[in-house]
């Protein structure tokens, strides 16, 4: 009996997971498909870009600066053992542009913007604003979810590039200014190695994918929340945990696809 119960429980859990996945997929499909709303769309999008993008700018820039400085410091200490400090620019920029830029800014984005999104939508649900929208004939998915999703997809690559540039300057401050690596060697080695298509463009793609995934998880968790204050707090936590895991997992997959061959 107990075994049967457990199997039933397992099946039920599976059903819930699959059901949630289906609902999450439908939310995305409904949000991204369908005719664009030219009347309200741009204003809503700008509003969301403001709250997910501009608000994340400060934390991204400050973290970027420190990450770049740490990278330069560690890279220098490692490279000086091989008498190859000229490769510092190359090492730092490859690490940043390919991996740390998109991933760290995505993790920060999940903490800063993703959690806020979940809480916002969860609160809308708890205060029955979503239901009210349906009553007055406004599709909440298109009105609420769509602009947020697009804002995530657009804002994330921009944030990642800003992160990269600030981090690079952090590395220049430490590497060139403080540790005395030649500025020419720093930049030339970097330029000799990095390629736009392979490194920078792939980094942009990564960031866009991360932005979409994080916002998707955040929006769905908000939409799916139990409409109590405890439910909202749990949903917010789940957003951060799930989207961090998703970012790291997706990063591996994307890296394997983009850089795996060469």
């Amino acid at each position, binding site marked *: 009996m107990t075994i049967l119960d457990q199997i039933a429980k397992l099946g039920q859990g599976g059903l819930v997971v699959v059901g949630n996945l289906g609902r999450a997929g439908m939310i995305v499909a409904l949000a991204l498909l369908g005719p664009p709303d030219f009347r309200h769309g741009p*204003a809503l999008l*700008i*509003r969301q*870009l*403001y709250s997910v*993008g*501009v608000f994340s*700018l400060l934390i991204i820039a400050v973290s970027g600066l420190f990450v770049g400085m740490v990278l330069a410091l560690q890279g220098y200490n490692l490279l000086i053992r*091989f*008498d*190859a400090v*000229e*490769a510092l620019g190359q090492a730092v*920029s490859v690490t940043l*542009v390919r991996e740390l830029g998109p991933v760290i800014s995505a993790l920060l984005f999940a903490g800063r913007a993703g959690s806020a999104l979940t809480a916002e939508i969860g609160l809308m649900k708890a205060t029955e604003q979503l239901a009210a929208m349906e009553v007055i004939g406004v599709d909440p998915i298109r009105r609420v979810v769509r602009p947020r999703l697009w804002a995530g997809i*657009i*804002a994330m*690559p*921009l*944030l990642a*590039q*800003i992160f*990269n*540039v600030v981090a*690079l300057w952090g590395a220049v401050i430490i590497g060139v200014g403080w540790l005395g690596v030649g500025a020419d060697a720093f*930049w030339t080695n*970097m*330029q*000799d*190695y*990095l*390629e*736009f298509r392979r*490194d*920078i463009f792939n980094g*942009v793609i990564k960031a866009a994918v991360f932005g979409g995934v994080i916002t998707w998880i955040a929006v769905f968790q908000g939409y799916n929340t139990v409409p109590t204050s405890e439910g909202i707090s749990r949903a917010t936590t789940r957003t951060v945990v799930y989207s961090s895991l998703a970012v790291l997992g997706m990063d591996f997959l994307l890296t394997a696809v983009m850089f795996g061959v060469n």
Partner: protein
Amino acid sequence: MQSRAIELAVGLFILAGILALAFLAIQVSGINREFDSKSTYQLYAEFNNVAGLTRKAKVTVAGVQVGLVTAITINPESMRARVDMVISSEVKDLSEDTIAAIQTAGILGEKYIALSPGGALETLSDGDRVHDTQSALILEELVGKILTSRATNP
């Protein structure tokens, strides 16, 4: 008033992001390197072995960078590596018996192509092939050769 400020902030944000991307594209990946500009000509050479030469590797004359490698492919018939390179137009009149040698720079083993001009009367021009090459030397092969020649000629 409120929404105007938001629009401005978002506009600045997008502008900053695009500028960052442009900076990375131009400064970091080196799209602005002089050898991508128009004042270049193309040469190619075939090697038995390029051993780790990569695209964008330097091409030098007397140690001075004069160009870079633009493509490395396999010639399907001879199964040799074909290396395409662009050379700055300032370096003209390379003789036809110029030798292209693959050499190694620095402790990290970065490979580059050293062009060594010869004394032939004809000169290479755009699209020509550098006929004489010196492939990368593989240490293991050299050691193997010394061993076999030692074994037979003690």
